[in-house]
């Protein structure tokens, strides 16, 4: 049994202990699984798929990781990488669908055009992504916090663990980032 490649669980524990190589090995494994799950999921066109995103991440965790041998900090780290992936998967999906509606002319499609073709839900997602991209230029830390909370469903405490910040800081950053995003989306 020990001869095989390290399991996702082992990689996760190693990475949490500071092994960056483990992360390189872990990322594609998790991404593949997530994308596959998301594909099945999104095909069903559930109108509420962003909140479901956190459920998906959660489910991926249940599928991939032996929960008997990890701590809650390991869990937070898993969610940390998965939430970023989830954001990309969902936004790509929304854009792809918008493109498909227009007839597959993917390269030439500007974001504005994409938005005009997407459904309300997708527009929201795309505009949130846009807003997050802008926030990224102002404040990287806050962007990560939003990803973890919104796409990963992490609690304040878990987010703090992943980013090595105090929960009070995370809370303050999250609240101010949220106001900024809301204003941006509402524009």
């Amino acid at each position, binding site marked *: 049994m020990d001869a095989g490649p390290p399991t996702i*669980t082992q990689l996760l524990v190693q990475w949490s202990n500071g092994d960056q190589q483990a992360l390189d090995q872990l990322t594609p494994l998790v991404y593949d699984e997530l994308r596959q799950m998301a594909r099945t999921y999104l095909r069903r066109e559930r109108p509420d798929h962003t909140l479901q995103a956190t459920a998906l991440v959660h489910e991926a965790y249940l599928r991939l990781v*032996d929960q008997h041998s990890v701590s809650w900090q390991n869990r937070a780290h898993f969610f940390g990488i998965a939430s970023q992936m989830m954001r990309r998967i969902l936004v790509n999906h929304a854009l792809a669908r918008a493109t498909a509606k227009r007839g597959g002319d993917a390269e030439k499609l500007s974001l504005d055009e994409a938005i005009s073709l997407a459904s*309300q839900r997708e527009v929201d997602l795309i505009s949130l992504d846009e807003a997050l991209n802008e926030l990224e230029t102002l404040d990287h830390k806050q962007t990560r916090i939003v990803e973890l909370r919104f796409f990963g469903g992490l609690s304040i405490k878990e987010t703090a663990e992943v980013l090595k910040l105090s929960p009070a800081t995370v809370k303050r950053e999250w609240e101010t980032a949220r106001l*900024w995003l809301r204003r941006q989306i509402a524009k």
Partner: protein
Amino acid sequence: MTPERWQEIKLVLGAVLERSPEERASFLNQACGHDELLRAEVESLMAHKQPGDSVVNSLGMYQELGALDAAEQQGSDDESTLESYQRIGPYKVLRELGHGGVGAVYLAARADDQYRQQVAIKLIRRGMDTDFVLRRFRNERQILAALDHPNIARLLDGGSTENHRPYLVMEYIEGVPIDTYCDSHRLSTEERLKLFQQVCGAVHYAHQHLVIHRDIKPSNILVTKESAPKLLDFGIAKLLSPELAAQTLDHTGPSLRLMTPAYASPEQIRGQPITTATDVYSLGVLLYELLTGHHPYRVQSHVPLELMQAVLGKEPTRPSTAIMTTETSPGPDGSASIRLTPESVSSTREGNPDRLRRSLRGDLDNIVLMALRKDPQRRYASVQQFSEDIRRHLARLPVIARGDGLAYRTSKFIRRNRVGVAAATMILFTLVGGIIAVNQQRRRAERRFNDVRQLAHSVVFDYHDAIADLPGSTPVRQRMVRDALKYLDSLASEASNDQGLQRELATAYRKIGDVQGNSNMANLGDTTGALISYRKSLAIRQALTQSQPDNKELQIELAESYERIGDAQRTTADVVEADKNYQHAIGLLEKASTGDSSQQRRLADLLYRVGNLKGYPRTANLGDTKGALEFHGRAQVIRESLSAANPNDINLRIDLAESHRSIANILAAASNDLTAAEPHARQAVSIAQSLVSTNHTSARTLRVLTEAQDALARLLMLNGQTTGALEVCLKSLETAERMLAIDPKNMQARQDLASGHTLAGNICTKMGDGKNALRHHRESLLMNQAITADDPTNEAAKVWIGQNYLNIGSAFAETHNLQAALGSYQQAVTIFEGLRQKKPGGIQAIQFVARAYDKLGETRLKLGDLKAALESLRHSVEFAEQSLARDSANDIMRRLVAVTYSNLGEVRSRLAAQRKAPESERNEQWLEARKAYQRSLDLFLDLRDRGVLTKEFYDKPEQVTLKIAACDAALRHHGDTIQTQAGMR
């Protein structure tokens, strides 16, 4: 914005957020100093603090950014330990029993010590307490609480804690998990099978109640000291998982959150529809483990993915082979491994490996493997069949699961018969599939016959009713109906020469029609679809009656089809067609019902309905009062003779009382024959009174009584006998109060009470007793407000509240308290405007708004506030004209508009008469006043010409004509003045 600037803004913003709302302004002044731009930025961001802003609210993300916080706040007590839960609802927590994925389980007892019974309470983890889950929770709880079986732990109660965490209260079972029990008692294979059969009995019972367990595993089956197995957590998995719930509705979306991978079926892992076959599978895993001590698949770890791959891809080892192997299975926490050997597993079972192997080889291998098949359709069709096969094995009879060949043929057969179902829902799959398999020995025709019957009776009908109240179930209900119709249509085309089947088909179409749009029961509101289905049922029944003209039963069924078509047409207010179809039904029943009192009763019901259709006041009718009275008379005769023959049948007497009451109402309102109406009303009261006083006091009989008293009171009021009317009306109120005392939540009783007070108030007004009128109208208002407080969706009650304010306003106006009247009318306007804006197309709201503005304008006119009066009256005519344009036959509205226009003319001419206004404006006002009076006159004359103008308004046209003349005179005078002025210039 630069990153540096954002850091500054963020700093101030974060600090502002941490302060209380009162402190924020002064803090902001301090923090920003002269930096106005900084201050503006922070304020603009703060403006996004409150969700609910209509512009941004349309953006889902905007709200979701806030939704997380709510979850976070509720979750803050998640880490809290038992101390914070010394009490859950009315229960005192004794100790924690366990902790699971769903939440913690506590041992508790009722805090009031009323019963010393101990219970197990499952407190649901945060994140599971969304509105959606909570609503499901309430609905499902009722279904689960109805499961009453000796081997199922009962769901006793449920609710939510002060911080909104839902909990479930279950019977507390003292026992050990079934696998531990079997091993510690060293039960033989046969003893294990018998225990297992009891488990099957419980699961089958639940399936009959349309509850699937979804999470069968040893830790959910405890065996008590009395050796009785008890299943825990029935249906809980579904209850607590929104994904799973959605899954039953559109059966999509994988979710593993609440299942135990080791016992999960392939379809659960794939996220495919969960059916009763899912429980068959999990029971198979359980039996496998009980018999062998091994898991069906060799799994090396607790990693769910590996386990799932095995469940999907590997074939389980035969039980008789598995026990001969040695396996190291991972311990429950990943470290301490358990070593299974042939000796170790047989020592707690048959004693030695050979005996154990012999007990399993053959039948039991086949039985267990059949339950574990990957394809749900190839497993046992039901848990009962599974259990029956075990019984046959124990009785040394041949078992179904002997060979794959036969079983495979069976499943092929099942699939063949499902062609008609094409995209059938999982519900149809399970139940119909089960029925077909069970009946596989019978003839084909009979089988199909049963398919149809099953489909119509239990699948669509019962299941539909079971899910009808679930929020969001409409799409699946629609789909059920669509699929069922497809199925029926295909059967109808094949089975034209089988009369028995044809007859069942007609019934099935009728039932589907009911589900689509029978307003007497939970339905999909699809009256058009219902009509189509009813007509299909009618066509079949017509053909059947033609081939067997003497078959009474067929005629009765044909009558039923006509009746349903009539009902559907009545709901769409197609009274002409409804009348025709009802008469067809009556014609058939008159011949077929002789000597059959239940059909006679139906005949009377139909006659009664036609009577109402022809001319029951205040409802859509044919305006045929004579016909109405004729049909009601016929119904009354039948009901009288039925009641005489069965004096103890209270339903018949209730029917009779209702006949009398309807006749009284028709005579009073439609033919204005109050003298003829009174005896009927009194007869209705007397029958109802006798029912109530002879031990039949129920909400129903009281309701019949209060309605009869209400009718009598109205009648007496119309006849000018106000004192008598008030007396009866107060009795009616008393009856309604009794109804409410029996059942304080009875909505009908509250409505009756509210409308009774309104009637009493109106009678008092007629008697000139403004004070008591006011009191009754206020009582009615309070009652209606209580109704809406309990049920904010009750739109009708809001309409009544608006009417209450109108009545209260009138009562104030009667007592010359115009200021108070003004306030009430303003309230009425607000309420009706609210309703109108909510339902922009609704004509009723428009009419009420018009009426309320009219009253408001009239009162302002009386108070001399001409400008405000003008505004109100202009609103009133605007809405009144809208309503008349859409419903030109409404003469009551027409009269209201006529009065409003004359008030408008009055306001205009008084404004015109004011000397301080410029001449040109005054001239304009006179012109407008004249226009208003002219419109009023036209309307009044139209009403009078058609003979529908009531006494009190009869002279109105003449009065208005005089006003027009006055306007003309003023206009001539002004014309002269203006000309004179022009000439002088």
